[in-house]
């Protein structure tokens, strides 16, 4: 590594899905790229890198955030939950099961963001009506047009697990 670049590196600790990760990063690395390039957690997706699509949604200290608009170093000490921490193949979260049941995706690229956003919304507990739920998830685009199935999946999980 060249000298000048080295100077710009910062020690950053992130607690990702319960695991403490110590990273040395330049300040300009987004949380999204830190997850994808430095921790090989590619479940979090990049759909725009500009805060316009929701694909990069993760849960940071209990709140939904767009990881593409967040610098990793600014989250030093934070707890991050990504799709990999929501559930596993062996033991999927009810939201993950409901997404499969309702075929709430086609290509699957927006899916981790949709699920993290839905999880954040359910835990925030504010959106109650169908319209509020749709509004609250509208920052997550789906170009495949799985919208109706996504909303069905989320409302079912809300009714069964969050009421």
């Amino acid at each position, binding site marked *: 590594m060249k000298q000048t670049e080295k100077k710009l590196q910062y020690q950053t600790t992130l607690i990702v899905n319960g695991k403490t990760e110590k990273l040395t990063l330049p300040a300009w690395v987004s949380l999204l790229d830190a997850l994808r390039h430095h921790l*090989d957690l590619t*479940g979090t997706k990049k759909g725009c890198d500009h805060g316009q699509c929701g694909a990069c949604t993760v849960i940071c200290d209990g709140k939904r955030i767009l990881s593409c608009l967040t610098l990793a170093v600014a989250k030093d000490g934070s707890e991050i939950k990504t799709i990999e921490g929501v*559930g596993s193949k062996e033991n999927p979260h009810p939201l993950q099961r409901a997404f499969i049941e309702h075929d709430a995706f086609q*290509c699957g690229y927006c899916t981790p963001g949709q699920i993290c956003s839905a999880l954040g919304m359910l835990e925030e507990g504010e959106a109650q009506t169908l319209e509020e739920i749709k*509004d609250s998830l509208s920052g997550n685009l789906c170009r495949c047009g799985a*919208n109706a199935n996504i909303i069905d999946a989320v409302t079912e999980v809300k009714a069964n697990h969050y009421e």
Partner: protein
Amino acid sequence: MKNKNGEIGKAKSRLTALEKVTGSAKYAAEYNVPDLLYGYIVNSSVTKGKITALDETAVRGIPGVVDVLSHNNRPSLPWFDVMYSDMDAPPGSPFKPFYDNEIKYDRQPIALVVADSFETARYAAAQLKVTYETEDFDVDLRKNLDDARDPSKGLATLIKPLPPSPKGDFAKAYGEAAATYDGDFRHGTEHHNPMEMHATTTVYEGEGKLTIYDKTQGTNNSQIYVSNVFGLSYSDVRVLAPYVGGSFGSGLRPQYQLFVCVMAALHLKRNVRVSLDRKQMYTFGHRPQTVMKARFGADAAGKVTAMHHKAVAETSRFEDYNEVVVNWGNILYPAQNTLLEYQLVPLDTYTPIDMRAPGGSTGMHAVETAMDALAYDLKIDPLEFRLRNYAERDVSEDKPFSSKELRECYRQGAEKFGWAERKPEPRSMKRGNRLVGYGMSSGIWDVIALPARAEAIFTKAGKFIVKSAVNDSGQGSYTVMTQIAAEQFGISTEEMTFEYGDSEHPLSPIQGGSYTTGVVGSAVKAACKVLKEELFKKAKRLKNSPFADSEEDAIYFRDGKIYAADDDTVFVNLTDIFQNEKEDKISVTKSNVPNPLKLKQYTRAAHSAAFVEVEVDEQLGTVNVTRAVTAVAAGNIINPKTARSQILGGMVWGISKALREETLTDFKTGRYVNPNLAEYHLPVHADIHDLDVIFVEEKDEIINELGAKGVGEIGLVSMAPAIANAIFHATGRRMTEFPIHFEDLVL
């Protein structure tokens, strides 16, 4: 041969579901390869002209920058167009990235900066100093309609035929018609915008060998392109695309991130990844802006007698991209006097590329608006009007349909929707301060037949494996192919292994045009059939085989065994075959080649009918699609669960086309001004309400081995016109431009 009843037709969750919901599905930019370099592309900032200088000094001085590639220092490249051709190349001369200093369109890729981190590459790319000499350009279709000319013919026009010749006497019939409609239509440029941006990861395996993870709709297409352009042998280039984050046509041709990524990997002998950013997703193909004219005439009995449909679309200056825009109306409605015209205007843009329901979704807006308008004029219910003009036979080609259950689509769709509740008069239905409208539209999409290959394998361990290079960008092909293969051997989908998305597997056409299920599915079925014959032959030869004298129709396959058709206690375990075998697997590869002579005798198409309710707020100019039903006749539905999602997706695209999406062009700068997901509007969850899908039963023994017509486009073609017609019913105003803007609706 008889089978246990079957995996085909079962509503199954997609086989990649767990990977997709847990984030373990890996897309092209997500392969963790060692010592990876990141490339970032620099795009031209002028629309037309020449690069006079590229100053790389600043860029090369940035720590971490490994190289800068451009036309100045690129490795030598072939000159002949044919080397750059691909399975979807229209007639003309394909764009050659970094070939010379000429700029043909705005944001053309001109250089690649390679660095040891993504951030450094991106930063450095912004520091490249480029000097240009600019030239005059034109990107305004409507200003250049006088330049319209016929499209050149080529391979593309075989699959996407040009309009049929005029029939009867349009002018006379139109003049004598009891009711006429004359309308001018337009839609702007649209971009595919799959959620995953185009990306390629090239693994340099040494000695000219490459493994490439590419975002593509055709692994073979990318493989052939890379091999030809870079002079590599096919066997040294392996392209993999097991997961593709949507494409909708954007991956039909090898895109320039593939080209530059491979170029850098070969040049540097390193592993390289190049991802496009969202803005760059607007620089390599789009649905072309198109203007249309429709003049339809009907007699007093409500029969359409005259049909003029003309479309003029843009193309690039270097390739003639064409679509089937004006052919559909006369296949649906048997007017005897027709004038169907399709022309192109070359402009200084990149070549358009098929985008979900190319041509059909454009043309049907005009056809179905004209039909709707005539119905209102003649005071006939719009659905009844379409029934009066129901084509029992395709008069445009004078052929029978291979199958057509559109009437059932109308009936079941109307019933489910409650079409009978509609009050005939425009502006007659209200909900609070909003006007309510009901609209409907027919839909049609052709069934394309192409050759494809597949391999079927049975292993000593008792495993069935079927392989094809085919992709799955979310349509569900992986699941559907596995179902088709499983059915052939009487096993469950879970017991069948289908391998796909790999150029090493048998050749598949690029995935598109709704033909994948029928085309690749038929190859899968054909390969399985040959394997069954092979296995049966070997079973007969076993010592004491109960089938020594049996014919094929006296047995069937189930659960890894061959059974006697009339006696379940008589069977052979398929793994016993290996007692006599040296190999530990039996493998066959088979091509399925459609019979053009048989197919040519029929018009082959999927049909749909969409019924839509809208609410229009004339104070705000807003439209809400409150509910919609689409009834589809697409032959055999292999997996009703994933097929339903395809139709729902098409309906959302219809909402988007009618009400949301468009790429706006600044004609002065030749530039798209909204190349991002904030200003390129897509429907969000809050825009989507009650959507319903019906699959009408339809048998078709002509089109392909499976009787499957495909469902990728048909959900879209009828939806957008039905929305426009519903808005007319709500407001009394015809919507002839897509997308519809607020200002088109406010009082």
